[in-house]
């Protein structure tokens, strides 16, 4: 993995610090071109990996990448699935079965469709695979060497102690996509223990790691202990604690943990991309 990964929160009005900033971002990135412009600026600076959710608009970005194979030669995407709000809003409105109906391709009550068979026979692993395939469709033809499950799903399974699902996910991503499975979590120490307990070794885990302990469940100390002692491949996110920290000090803190392989961050301007990238390369 590269040291610097471009994130996508800024494109989809995700700010953990300010609803007002969210709105400003939504206005700024109204058009796909404005997103592509930032991606192109990142590439000019040598940032060749884009880690993004399976938001509907990413499909358009993928199409643009496919249409320009020379320009995007060597460019990689790390998909993170699912785009949780799509499903969360659907569950609120349609219920769980209604949501499955909406998103599983074909008639789920028909044994003539793959989704129908999986649904009627309650083959949960097959259903999971169908969901993964449907989320992955938009990345067809694009290099996706690491595929992540989003924290809402990871942490839900973690709390419910359904660790076998991680194992099945791990197997399927390796088998079908020839990619490394990755996990996003807000509960890093508990997840490492859970994955290790199912035999998953040295997992790629993306989690909040920052000097102020923001979104580091259980506290900074246990995170630091795991970063020093456990075998895994950490990607640090929310390194600026949603913008509350000074970038220099924030990245310097990450430098204390040689295990951290990559830093995920979102930026909207070339100068900000450049500054953060230089800091990461200096301290990591």
């Amino acid at each position, binding site marked *: 993995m590269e040291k610097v990964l471009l994130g996508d929160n800024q494109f*989809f*009005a*995700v*700010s*953990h*610090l*300010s*609803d*007002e900033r*969210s*709105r400003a971002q*939504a206005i700024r990135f109204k058009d796909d071109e404005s997103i592509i412009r930032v991606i192109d600026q990142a590439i000019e600076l040598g940032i060749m990996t884009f880690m993004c959710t399976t938001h509907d608009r990413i499909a358009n970005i993928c199409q643009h990448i496919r249409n320009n194979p020379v320009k995007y030669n060597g460019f990689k995407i790390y998909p993170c699935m699912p785009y949780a*709000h799509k499903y*969360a*809003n659907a*569950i*609120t*409105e*349609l*219920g*769980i*079965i*209604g949501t499955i109906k909406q998103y599983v391709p074909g008639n789920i009550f028909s044994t003539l469709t793959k989704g129908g068979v999986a*649904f009627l026979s*309650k083959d*949960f692993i097959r259903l999971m695979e169908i969901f993964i395939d449907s989320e992955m469709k938009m990345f067809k033809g694009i290099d996706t060497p690491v595929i992540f499950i989003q924290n*809402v799903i990871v*942490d*839900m*399974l*973690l*709390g*419910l*102690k*359904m660790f*076998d*699902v991680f194992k099945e996910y791990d197997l399927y991503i390796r088998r079908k996509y020839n990619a490394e499975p990755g996990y996003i979590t*807000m*509960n890093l120490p*508990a997840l490492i223990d859970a994955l290790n307990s199912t035999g998953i070794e040295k997992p790629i885990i993306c989690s909040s790691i920052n000097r*102020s*302990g*923001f*979104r580091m*469940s*259980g*506290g900074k100390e246990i995170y630091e202990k795991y970063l020093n002692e456990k075998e895994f491949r950490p990607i640090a996110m929310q390194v600026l*604690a*949603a913008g*509350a920290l000074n970038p220099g000090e924030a990245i310097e803190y990450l430098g204390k943990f040689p295990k951290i392989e990559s830093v995920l961050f979102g930026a909207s301007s070339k100068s900000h991309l450049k500054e953060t990238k230089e800091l990461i390369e200096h301290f990591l």
Partner: protein
Amino acid sequence: MIKLKGAIIGLGKMGLSHAAIIGAHPDVNLISVCDTSSLVLDAFKKFSAIKTYNSYQKMIDDMTLDFVIVATPTKYHYQMVKYALDRGLHVFCEKPFSLNTSQGKELVDLAANKMLVNQVGFHNHFIGTFRELKRLLDKNVIGEIVHFTGEAYGPVVTKEKVGTWRSKPEEGGGCLYDYASHVINLIQEIIGRPEKICGTLLKKIYSRDVEDGVYSMLKLKSGLTGTLLVNWSDETYRKMATSLTIYGKKGKIICDATEIKIYLKEPFVPEKLDKGWTMKYITDLAIPVNFYLRGEEYSAQLDYFIECIKDKRQVIYNSFEQALYTDLVIEMIVKDAKNY
């Protein structure tokens, strides 16, 4: 220490979220869950050691429990909460609490008589910014309050189609019960209890049978007035966004789940607040939790419930009584809307 034994009734979005949080809680064993969907129950059977039931009565009778979490559609709350309280269980119930305030009152009294811990899931009170807002108002930072606005917007119903129980008014569906209840509850606990409704518009936008927008004027006991502006058909919001704006004679505070913006006409020295704007962020105000799922507040409210059971004390935040008051205000709003 002996772990508490808990169960969840209703495995929709909130029930699953509660199950995961309780499942990860170090002081609790989540021993059973109950739902009517065999698909969801089979997933628990296959992937977890948690016992599954499709009848809540049977589950409560069979299992030795300390508490239950009720996360079913609102119309079932009364029968389920009553059954659990009658059998001596502490109860955490999802919002809104009741559809019928006389039934709600019965549950409030029953829980009080049995001295059982009772809490409702108005999770905003476990967001650090709203806690801070209450603290600042209690210190009289913006002087005498002259008006307030409580707002919530989000993208729940953004096109015309047939939905679930949330589109049925008789089952507790609609923007008033689902979205506005959060704002009413925040207003009543942070600013004061509304006693009179002075004009209401319940607007249908995409839904056929329920309102998608709630616009109402509220009057508190103190005479203070405010506006309630809620719309769950606004897709310019990625997720539900709830905010309170309080206008005082010495300044104004705007508070949402991520930040507090304070404007003061003069400095407020005891709080080290300058003249003009001061911003405070959730990054400094979040309540620390051991397990995070979708927001600190969801874990923090359950941590608090568990803590109260262990310490044998009643909750200060989100009691049945407070939730019942929100239901009473909803009832007043529905009645008032008929005038227009």
